[in-house]
């Protein structure tokens, strides 16, 4: 009896609770609902990048037999957008089109062929306007405004000047400045966008299955754009084939599908192509960064100054938040006070980017870390020593008021240095081989929600009934990251029961509590805490029931998970017996748990937009990348990556490893091969061959160390695991290439053609210098 105890779940490598469905093919993704007897939705897209809409003539399309609905911008009365202050997009273009591929009409028909015929029968009359494909063109003085309310095509400019930057530069032993250019990249999540919608004409009710990370936001935008009571709408998130931020705002696909279903009075499946998914990419914007850093001879950072220009698209999306993150997250990782930042988010006639994994921080971190590495070289310092000279001491607040309560970066540095054999191998590898390192961090959710309603940041419900099972209801969108598994673990751990007792149901607006969605790595911290709170509340109910039955005060009841007893000699009550006692008089038990962020975590007020970046906890990561560069072809092979990630308590070490490997690898794609390309606004990389996602062939082993600097407020001490180690790869790669062949890259992706040119430039420069030297000697 004495050896029995609560089942331990937290900290145990745990397969995903929905894993069996995924490996057997039973998991239902949005497109899998569509193959049933439903209408086929299709979208007609703009052939021009910028134009006034004169007429979209759909009269012929409507006459085609089998066509059940045809919609245009005339059917759209309301705009949508993820930020309440930037809702300037119609589901179907109404007065203007602002990028090539923007939806202008949509049809629902009995089959694909008929739908295509209907699209072909639609004519689009327009008056072309000047189109801008670069931030520079859109910012030019004579450029016309894409949106009246955004003069000069500036979506948002952000400026802060904290501390004494000039003094910092004056006192620095070394000041260096560099310009960086990062290509636009896309998430290319495995599943193309898809939505299935069913409109019930009898009851005037709409049910939508969107491929989204944010079912709650989709619900709000359906209410707004369909001008329909939100109580008549039900949003059910199906299995999701990845997100990475691509679907962290409502997309036109979802709204168009619902509109078609209502117009046709039935069921519509709208599955868009991979090319259309690229057009609706909401990826990381093309970014130009000017970075200037002042450093003391011992590596201490004294000041930084940075300008960031992001090429946005034809609509706002998350743009304002992206440029704010770019500035605020210069802080939070190192001990530095004086930073000046000028950020510009520009509207152009391109498909809008969005909030891709590492939102706003990645290209800035690349520039900052790469420049630190260059300066370390110049000062003759080890890059590890430079990082160690600037570590934060938790608990603290950064100079822009970000709260830092846990900080494991020092331990991350120690591990990657040791595991990679840095001290023995750095500088001693054969020609063409090199090592590079860098650090990174990320938020565990934004402490200030976009839709401020005064509600808690997360709510979890638990139901317990006669069968002794615990049903966990959460709005947290399971997108493949393992949120349902995480919530299940939290509840099982608190109750001390096997996870098999817990059934988790997620993201059905008719059943589960509202959740803001899966983005900015908020779910483990916020929903995890709400799940712990709910489970504690349930445990109290059960403990009180056990106390009644055992006839002892509740504080004398010991919970062993499957057994509740009063003292070690007591045989105790089984979980089922306790549940039956708890049900007496009250019936089915439902309890709730919530989580709300601390006010002091919600960022500062030192400049406009300073709340962005405020979070309950930061994750930290360090990584070492080893490369081989082919001297003839300039091809880079990544031989190995060592990464240490501080995620606080690792609730599920298996998932943490998977998230960290995926992040590092996604950073590798951006650093080496990925980048969208356009011709006059027309995407020419709209497939997975021309847009080069790394295959298994060139993907390296990635060794992960989990560092657990437990956070005082995280669930069991946990914090973010799915984004923080991405951005470090980029500067670690450029540093490794510099170590290998002495060439420094500032533009990404570092494809062989780009690197070859840099190598040739260097060879010419070296030759010239050698010639000058010999001339001087002579």
């Amino acid at each position: 009896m004495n050896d029995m105890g609560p089942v331990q779940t937290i900290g145990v490598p745990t397969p995903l609770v929905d894993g069996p469905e995924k490996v057997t093919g039973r998991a239902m993704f949005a497109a899998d609902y569509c193959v049933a007897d439903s209408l086929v939705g299709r979208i007609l897209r703009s052939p021009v990048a910028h134009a006034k809409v004169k007429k979209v003539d759909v009269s012929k399309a409507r006459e085609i037999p089998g066509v059940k609905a045809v919609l245009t911008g005339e059917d759209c009365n309301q705009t949508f957008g993820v930020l309440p202050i930037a809702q300037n997009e119609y589901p179907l273009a109404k007065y203007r089109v602002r990028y090539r591929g923007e939806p202008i009409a949509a049809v629902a028909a009995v089959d694909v062929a008929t739908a295509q015929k209907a699209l072909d029968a639609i004519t689009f009359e327009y008056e072309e306007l000047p189109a801008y494909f670069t931030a520079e063109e859109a910012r030019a003085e004579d450029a016309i405004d894409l949106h009246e309310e955004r003069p000069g095509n500036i979506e948002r400019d952000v400026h802060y000047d904290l501390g004494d930057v000039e003094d910092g530069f004056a006192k620095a032993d070394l000041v260096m400045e560099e310009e960086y250019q990062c290509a636009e990249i896309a998430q290319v999540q495995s599943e193309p966008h898809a939505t299935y919608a069913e409109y019930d004409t009898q009851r005037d009710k709409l049910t939508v299955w969107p491929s989204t990370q944010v079912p709650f936001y989709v619900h709000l935008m359906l209410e707004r754009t369909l001008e329909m009571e939100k109580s008549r709408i039900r949003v059910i998130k199906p299995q999701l084939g990845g997100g990475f931020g691509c679907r962290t705002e409502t997309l036109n696909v979802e709204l168009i599908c619902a509109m078609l279903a209502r117009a046709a009075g039935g069921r519509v499946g709208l599955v868009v192509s991979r090319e259309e998914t690229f057009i609706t990419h909401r990826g990381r914007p093309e970014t130009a960064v000017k970075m200037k850093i002042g450093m003391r001879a011992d590596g201490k950072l004294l000041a930084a100054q940075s300008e960031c220009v992001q090429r946005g698209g034809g609509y706002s999306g998350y743009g304002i938040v992206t440029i704010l993150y770019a500035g605020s997250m210069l802080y939070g990782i190192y001990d530095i006070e004086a930073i000046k930042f000028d950020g510009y988010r520009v509207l152009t006639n391109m498909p809008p980017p969005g909030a891709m994994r590492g939102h706003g921080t990645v290209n800035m971190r690349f520039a900052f870390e790469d420049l630190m590495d260059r300066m370390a070289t110049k000062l003759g310092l080890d890059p590890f020593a430079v990082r160690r000279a600037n570590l934060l001491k938790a608990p603290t607040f950064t100079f822009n008021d970000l709260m830092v309560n846990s900080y494991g970066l020092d331990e991350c540095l120690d591990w990657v240095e040791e595991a990679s054999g840095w001290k023995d191998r750095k500088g001693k590898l054969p020609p063409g081989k090199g090592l590079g390192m860098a650090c990174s961090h990320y938020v565990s959710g934004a402490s200030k929600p976009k839709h401020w309603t005064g509600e808690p940041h997360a709510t979890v419900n638990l139901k317990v009934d006669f069968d002794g099972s615990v049903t966990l209801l959460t709005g947290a969108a399971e997108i493949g990251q393992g949120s349902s598994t995480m919530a299940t673990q939290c509840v099982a751990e608190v109750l001390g029961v096997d996870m098999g007792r817990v059934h988790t149901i997620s993201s059905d607006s008719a059943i589960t509590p509202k959740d803001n969605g899966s983005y900015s790595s908020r779910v483990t911290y916020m929903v995890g805490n709400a799940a712990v709170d709910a489970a504690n509340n349930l445990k109290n109910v059960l403990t009180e029931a056990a106390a009644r039955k055992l006839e002892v005060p509740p504080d004398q009841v010991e919970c062993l998970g499957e057994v509740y007893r009063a003292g070690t000699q007591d045989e105790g009550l089984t979980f089922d017996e306790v549940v039956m006692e708890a049900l007496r008089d009250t019936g089915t038990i439902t309890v709730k748990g919530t989580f709300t962020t601390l006010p002091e975590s919600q960022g500062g007020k030192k400049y406009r937009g300073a709340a962005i970046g405020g979070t309950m906890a930061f994750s930290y990561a360090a990584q070492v990348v080893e490369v081989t560069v082919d001297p003839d072809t300039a091809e880079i092979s990544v031989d190995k990556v060592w990464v240490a990630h501080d995620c606080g308590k690792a609730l599920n070490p298996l998932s943490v490893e998977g998230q960290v490997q995926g992040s590092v690898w996604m950073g590798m794609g951006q650093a080496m091969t990925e980048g969208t390309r356009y011709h006059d606004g027309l995407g020419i990389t709209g497939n997975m061959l021309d847009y080069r996602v790394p295959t298994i062939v060139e993907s390296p082993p990635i060794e992960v160390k989990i560092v657990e600097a437990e956070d005082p407020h995280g669930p069991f001490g946990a914090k973010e695991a799915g984004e923080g180690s991405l951005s470090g790869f980029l500067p670690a790669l450029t540093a490794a290439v510099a170590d290998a062949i002495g060439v420094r890259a500032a533009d990404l992706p570092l494809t062989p053609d780009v690197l070859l040119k840099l190598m040739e430039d260097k060879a010419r420069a070296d030759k010239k210098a050698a010639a000058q030297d010999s001339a001087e000697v002579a």
Partner: protein
Amino acid sequence: MSKSMLSLTVNGRTRDDVVPDNMLLVDYLREVVGATGTKVGCDGGECGACTVIVDGKARHACLTLAVSCNGKAVETVESLERNGRMSALQRAFNEKLGAQCGFCTPGMIMASEALLRHTPNPNDDDIRRELAANICRCTGYVKIIESVHAAVAETSAKEAAE
């Protein structure tokens, strides 16, 4: 579009269907057979999510006409479970987190299945070569390679015990 008679086996069951000549195998499987485990992740031959086994060999079902499978044996991810028990590969992908979002997984598992049939003890290079046409965006492939090795280890341990 003219139609043809298609006689084949899908996951061991004989079927006779009349299908349009231009129907892709993937559409036939998903829409006619109702086997939606096979996924479509791209516009043709880019991602490998639709990988199935035709007469023992891995094939992109999105690059294969259904009628070209007349008289052949087609296997999809739904075929791997035996008496309600997942195959060694399925268990390994589940337990080693070879599947995160799960969308590429059916294709990834069928490509791995094809590999293990002709190379029962693959090394890392064998796995990389055989899965080169299957894109995963979640895992960085590390745990996919581990999953294939784990399936092999489990199968060999079982065979040794027998």
